[in-house]
């Protein structure tokens, strides 16, 4: 029998960080006192009606464009009807047929292999309020009562739904990570999983090999990090496989990821498919995102992470360095400017992703809090290329620049780290050492290459350690070979 194969689809909710909410002027803010950012609209007081935020529509068009989607010129808002206390209107304004974006795709790379995830749709909706369950350690079933905060009610929410194209937990994680990078690059959301401004639901099923029918799927919620997305899916694949191996059946249900125990837990069995009674939102007019709007967003689209990584690799960095630089706008920006100022890309990439990152971590600082500029990096790179500075010394100089001790050259001079790379001068030194050590030189000339080190060491001694050892070594070798 063929091996078990997982079939995975991801639904992602991204809160857009607009100034104001989706349908009213209340501020979008995180962590404020409960029920202080509410108004008649987002509390659903009688008589209050919604008006959509133009910037939120702009945000979803940006996301859809970045995901290579078709942007529908005409799209509609619908009411999705269900009663739940965190949903003030007891319907959510969402989209149904005619979402803003459809038929997109996102390419990810796992273990060096590119992989395309189809995007079914990207649609606009609104967030709910938050409930806190009181009593019995806050678990919903044992709570004595619940408390509701509607600050989050009506925050613009974009839902991104994939095709069931994903096959492994690693791919799912890579998809989630890439989507997070894109959303951040677009500047539409900080996409923080731990704060809930980005949330994943994973639909997982397993089947016997790629030709088998899809199995019954479960939907796993409450995944608060990329790591737990991968863990939760891995757990769910293993669980489903075990159940089926033992002759059991998978029940279509919603499951919660329990981070502490590392398991998914059944929340509720869907007895029947929900009857949301979708109908077109009569308080709202249709959306019309015309060609000009679509073209403008496309033209204004910033360089996406994948484009940036490819460009960095093209400049000479390795793939890992490229990823690190592309992931961090500050570091990537420094890198871009340094290269533009003439720095060697490979060298600059390594300095920035290794030395600079280590310094920032050690000092618990951000890049802007240091004295380092792109011009410094370029200057440092030039000094190393010119042989004025050894690559070992360059790291010390870089750290001193970060600490604000001066420019690379000032520091190198002050610390007396400038190398002698004047070949005429060095040749004279080499000749002098050979003249003083004729026996040793004969051994070298006889083929004992280990003696190179001795001669280099002698020259370094005579020059107080400032000679460029690379150059000296080369000269000694040439002389030995006649």
């Amino acid at each position, binding site marked *: 029998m063929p091996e078990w194969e997982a079939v995975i689809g991801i639904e992602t909710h991204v809160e857009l960080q607009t100034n104001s909410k989706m349908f009213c002027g209340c501020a979008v803010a995180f962590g404020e006192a409960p029920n202080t950012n509410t108004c008649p609209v987002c509390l659903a007081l009688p008589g209050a009606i919604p008006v959509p*935020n133009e910037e939120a529509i702009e945000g979803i068009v940006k996301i859809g464009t970045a995901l290579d989607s078709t942007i529908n010129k005409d799209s509609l808002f619908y009411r999705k009807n269900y009663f739940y206390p965190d949903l003030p209107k007891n319907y959510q304004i969402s989209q149904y047929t005619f979402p803003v974006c459809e038929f997109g795709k996102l390419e990810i790379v796992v273990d060096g292999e590119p992989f395309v995830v189809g995007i079914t749709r990207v649609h606009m909706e609104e967030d709910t309020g938050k409930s806190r369950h009181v009593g019995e350690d806050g678990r919903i079933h044992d709570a004595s009562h619940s408390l509701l905060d509607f600050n989050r009610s009506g925050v613009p929410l974009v839902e991104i739904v994939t095709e069931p194209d994903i096959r492994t937990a690693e791919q799912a994680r890579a998809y989630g990570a890439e989507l997070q990078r894109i959303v951040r690059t677009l500047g539409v959301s900080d996409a923080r999983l731990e704060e809930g401004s980005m949330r994943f639901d994973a639909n997982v099923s397993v089947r016997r090999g790629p030709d088998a029918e899809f199995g019954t799927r479960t939907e796993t919620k409450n995944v608060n990090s990329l790591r737990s997305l991968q863990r939760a899916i891995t757990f769910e694949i293993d669980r489903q496989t075990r159940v089926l191996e033992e002759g059991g059946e998978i029940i279509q249900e919603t499951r919660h990821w329990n981070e502490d125990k590392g398991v998914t837990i059944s929340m509720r069995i869907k007895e029947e498919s929900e009857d949301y009674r979708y109908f077109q939102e009569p308080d709202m007019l249709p959306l019309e995102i015309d060609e000009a709007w679509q073209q403008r967003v496309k033209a204004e689209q910033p360089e996406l992470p994948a484009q940036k990584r490819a460009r960095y690799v093209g400049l000479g960095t390795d793939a890992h360095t490229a990823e690190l630089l592309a992931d961090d706008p500050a570091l990537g920006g420094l890198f871009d400017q340094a290269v533009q100022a003439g720095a060697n890309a490979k060298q600059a990439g390594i300095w920035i992703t290794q030395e600079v990152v280590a310094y920032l971590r050690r000092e618990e600082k951000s890049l802007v809090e240091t004295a380092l500029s792109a011009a410094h990096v370029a200057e440092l790179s030039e000094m190393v290329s010119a042989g004025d500075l050894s690559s070992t010394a360059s790291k010390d100089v870089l750290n001193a620049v970060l600490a604000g001790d001066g420019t690379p050259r000032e520091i190198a001079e002050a610390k007396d780290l400038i190398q002698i790379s004047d070949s005429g001068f060095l040749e004279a030194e080499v000749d002098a050492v050979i003249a003083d050590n004729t026996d040793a030189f004969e051994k070298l000339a006889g083929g004992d290459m280990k003696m190179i080190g001795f001669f280099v060491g002698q020259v370094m001694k005579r020059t107080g350690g400032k000679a460029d050892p690379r150059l000296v070594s080369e000269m000694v070798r040439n002389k030995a070979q006649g």
Partner: protein
Amino acid sequence: MPVDIDIAKVAHLARIDLSDEELAQYGEQLSVILEYAERVSALPTDGVEPTSHPLPATNAFRPDVVTSSLTNEEALAMAPEAEDGYFRVPRILGEP
């Protein structure tokens, strides 16, 4: 044509707690009204687009500007129950 209605299910969807007697009564009334309303199906509408809105316009937007919210006191002023700045409700069973 008699209309078949699962009135208990409809009442549950609408979150209205009705007694069996009330359900039976509403079920009957709904049948009568729906039979009348069903006259709409007599009209041939092949190829007719539905009208969901009388205004032939699109894109009514609001600029992304923050306006003043209600204070916590104003928001909770009419709450049946409140606690520590929150709206208080009995325990919630299940997920949405």
